[in-house]
Each structure stands twice: as structure tokens, then as C-alpha cells.
């Protein structure tokens, strides 16, 4: 079966985001950008499905600026077969992304779409669920284990109270949580090979999707800072403080 994976180019996981002085957003000038870590897990899972002989072809899709090609090349170097970039300089919201992915899914007819549960920049945790709604497919969100067999996929989900397992009919949308797998690093030969894998470019207009934003960001500010408190010298003093604060009797 064909598997579609969606990947987003975001600020690197290890970079501390700095709010711009004018309060319009987070400063991304000269900041290292990488593939959203949850999307790396999505790519890895698709590759493992292919290695198991379940997936036959992996198509990586990204929505973003021309530079998102680099993110797609990373996916190709990891093991995706080909890539599609929906190129736009607009910041597309999850609803718009879901609509674009739904169009691509209609063209590609995958049996599974795998995405990260959220992007570490806007932290919406919405695209996968929205895509599933638009396609009328079932969704397996926050997956820590997936096991497809015979037209179905069993999905173990990380929920607040433990691990929930659901059975979904294919085609289905899966969103990844941290425990699903540990993504591989692309080897140098595979990075070289990825350069010649096919990468198609489309635009939201060509796909007939209106990606006008519904949310306007009025302001971006730093969160309130915590003040460092006092240091205590002993366990007794610590317990004394906790008693004063009413934490322990």
C-alpha cells in the first residue's frame, strides 16, 4: 500500500526561540531549521512499514516555502521514495494544510497518511484530525504503536490515563507520539541518492485551495518570568519551608 507522510520545516528542536522585540512573532532569522521531530517519527514509521513489506511506496509532502525542499530531501534521504512540495510563502494554518493534504490524498490514493501529532512551532495538534475529518477517514492520534493487517490497522494511543488501543479501517490517518519509534539518521550515501529522487512542486492555487488565515496574530510576547527563590541549607529547613507553604503538615 501507498503511505503518505506529511513533514513540516520548523525551528530546530535544540534552539531556544526568541520573541522579536516588536512583538510580531518569534525571530527565525539565521536560526537553524529542521524537520519537526514528530514528523521525523512519521517518516521513520513509514519506512519501517516498507521494510516489513507492508508499504510499497512512501510519498513525503510538505507545505511551505521553497526552503522546505530541504526538509523533503531529508525525508527522501531517510527512505521516502518521492516528494511533493506545496509551495507558498504564507504561513498556512492546520485547516489550510489539512485541505491541501486532502487534495494530495485524493490524487495519490494512499491507504495511510502519517503525520506528527503536532508541530513544535505553533503547537496546534490539529492537522491530522482535520485531515481525517475532511477525508471522512478514521484517525489514530498520538500513536505509540501501529500494526496494520488485512485492511485494518490497530493503533495504540498515548492517552492521559494510559494506552488505548483502537482498530481502524483503512484508509486511515495516523498521528505520531514520541514512543512510536526512534528515527534513523540518513547515511551519507542515502543523502547523495536523495538528491536524484523525484520532487514535484505545486501551489495552493493549482490545488484549488483557499489558504487564507482565519486567525490573526495580534501579539507575541514572552511568558511571564519566574523569580528564583531562596536556597535552604538542609532537609529540615526544606521541610520547614514546605510546612510554612502548607504543602506538608
Amino acid at each position: 500500500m501507498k503511505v503518505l507522510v506529511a513533514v513540516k520545516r520548523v525551528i530546530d528542536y535544540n534552539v531556544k526561540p526568541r520573541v522579536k522585540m516588536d512583538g510580531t512573532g518569534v525571530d527565525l532569522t539565521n536560526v537553524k531549521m529542521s524537520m519537526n521531530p514528530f514528523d521525523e517519527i512519521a517518516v521513520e514509521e513509514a519506512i519501517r512499514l516498507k521494510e516489513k513489506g507492508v508499504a510499497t511506496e512512501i510519498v513525503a509532502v510538505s507545505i511551505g516555502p521553497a526552503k522546505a525542499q530541504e526538509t523533503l530531501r531529508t525525508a527522501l534521504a531517510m527512505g521516502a521514495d518521492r516528494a511533493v512540495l506545496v509551495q507558498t510563502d504564507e504561513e498556512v494554518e492546520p485547516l489550510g494544510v489539512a485541505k491541501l493534504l486532502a487534495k494530495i490524498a485524493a490524487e495519490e490514493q494512499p491507504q495511510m497518511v502519517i503525520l506528527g501529532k503536532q508541530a513544535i512551532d505553533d503547537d496546534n495538534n490539529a492537522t491530522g484530525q482535520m485531515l481525517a475529518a475532511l477525508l471522512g477517514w478514521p484517525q489514530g492520534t498520538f500513536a505509540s504503536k501501529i500494526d496494520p493487517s488485512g485492511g485494518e490497522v490497530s493503533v495504540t494511543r498515548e492517552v492521559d490515563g494510559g494506552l488505548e488501543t483502537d482498530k481502524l479501517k483503512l484508509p486511515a490517518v495516523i498521528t505520531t507520539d514520541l514512543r512510536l519509534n526512534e528515527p534513523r539518521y540518513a547515511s551519507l550515501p542515502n543523502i547523495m541518492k536523495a538528491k536524484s529522487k523525484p520532487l514535484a512542486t505545486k501551489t495552493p492555487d493549482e490545488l484549488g485551495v483557499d489558504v487564507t488565515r482565519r486567525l490573526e496574530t495580534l501579539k507575541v510576547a514572552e511568558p511571564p518570568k519566574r523569580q528564583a527563590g531562596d536556597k535552604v541549607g538542609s532537609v529540615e529547613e526544606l521541610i520547614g519551608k514546605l510546612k510554612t507553604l502548607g504543602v506538608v503538615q
Partner: protein
Amino acid sequence: MKTLVYVEHEGGQIKDATLAAVTAASKLGEVHALVAGSNVGAVAEAATKIAGVGKVHVADAAHLDHGLAENVAPVAAKLMETHDAFVAPATTTGKNIAPRVAALLDVMQVSEILSVEDENTFTRPIYAGNAIATVRTSDAKKVLTVRGTAFEKAAREGGSGSVEQVEAGSDTGTSSFVNLEASESERPELTSAKIIVSGGRAFGSSDQFHSLLDPLADKLGAAVGASRAAVDAGYAPNDYQVGQTGKIVAPEVYIAIGISGAIQHLAGMKDSKIIVAINKDEEAPIFQVADIGLVGDLFKIVPELTEKL
């Protein structure tokens, strides 16, 4: 504005996060509730008692058991014909269902709101809480998820709502619940615990992590958390992880032991009311956010603390 709060429940009990969502919704206008599930009469009854809740819409059918998003979202979307805002707790349940409702309504969800500025304007954390965005929606209908730690919980008693049975829709047949493997612990859930004791890589091994932290947690009635470093080192399971990509917590008291305070960890716990840090390195960044710090060897301090509490 008429709001519809999604009531999260389990084993016949309404979850605390729902109560915070009710408070957020009450800032927008009239509060209605949706109770979806199978044999949920008692839950609906309990929902009518929540302070501030007016009408409780009840969709009761076998296919709504376990809150499967595929079956619940259409019921919520239908009710949104007569409501203006769908408000769900930002729990794994709410996060699973709300965006599906939003897409059915062609609305862009506002995720994990921290405050209601006016009926169209909300604040929400982005970049793992390293920035707070104020956003204004232009959608006529709104879909919101609510961060439970940012709003007071509405009282469970004092309301006098009424129950109305609604159309439960049909089974899409595309998904089914298999089982829930509940976290094996007598301790409270991380995201709703009042006290959390959390350990880092300094514990050195899984054995030491559990043999030192578990008794302390039991003494305090606390949940146990871990830094990503401790999880990556295999000292604690992944669902213990507090931080940017793990769980976001804001308990009354967070006790960080042997945790240096990496950005991704701080992002997950810095909204705790009181932070206590125990670390042998007095320069550790965790002390910059701690209300009470104790510099020293955790292998001596933790047993002593457990004993003397």
C-alpha cells in the same frame, strides 16, 4: 454567545479538565454541555449540577462509547448549528475530538487557550510555551481547546441545568475501541496531580530512580515524573516524561530532583505554583525558576526527606 462544552468523563465520573473548560466557556456566554457516550444518564445528571451549566445535551448510544472521534464529532458538529462556540478540555480526549469538529464546521481551531480576551480573542502558548500569542479569530463559529491549568475549575455543585436528549447519529463503522491499558499506578495522573516529584539523569539507574523516588512520592501522595534525559537513559518509562514533547504539568508543587533544567524540561513544568529543586550543582538552571532550592547529594537528601516528612 451560546457555547457547547464537551464533557469528558470516564467510569461515570466527569474529569476535572471539563470544569476548567466550563469556566473558560462562561467567559464567552451561556454554557451548554454535551455528554456523549453509552449509558451516560448519571454523567448527564452530574453535568447539570456543575455551576454555570444550563442545558446538557445528551447523546446516548452504544457507538458513542469510549468517545470515538469518528462517531462523536458529527454529533457535536450537528449541535453547533445552534451554538456559537465548541469548547473542549485540552486533554488527549479533547485534542482528539475538537479539531475533527472544527474541520467539519470549516473552522480553524484555537488550541489550548490560556485566557479569553474577548469573544474573538484568546491567548495561547506557542513554541512549547516559550512565547504566548494573542490571536483573533475571524470564524463566525469558534472551536477552542482549553488548557486546564490556566482556568479555575467550576464547582461540581450548585448548577441547575436541564437535560435534553439529542440525536446520537449513526456508527460510521470505521473505528472501534479495543482496550485501555490504564497506567499501572496507585499514584495520581501526572497531568492532574497536586504534587509531582520528578527525577533526572543524576539518579544513575532505573533501580535507584524507583527505589528513591517512589517512597517519597507515596509519602506525599504525589505523581512521579522524569526529565527527558532520565527517560532516554531508560530510568523511567516515556509516559513519565515532563517537558516540551512530553506532558505539560502545573501542579501545586513540583519537586525536581537531579534535574538540571534544560529548556525542554522547563517548558513542561514552569507554570507549577511552587517549584522545589534539589541538585548537587548550584549553578544548575533549575535553580533560576525554583522557589526553594537545596544544593546537595540527592542520594543522601532524598532518603532523609522521605524519612522526615
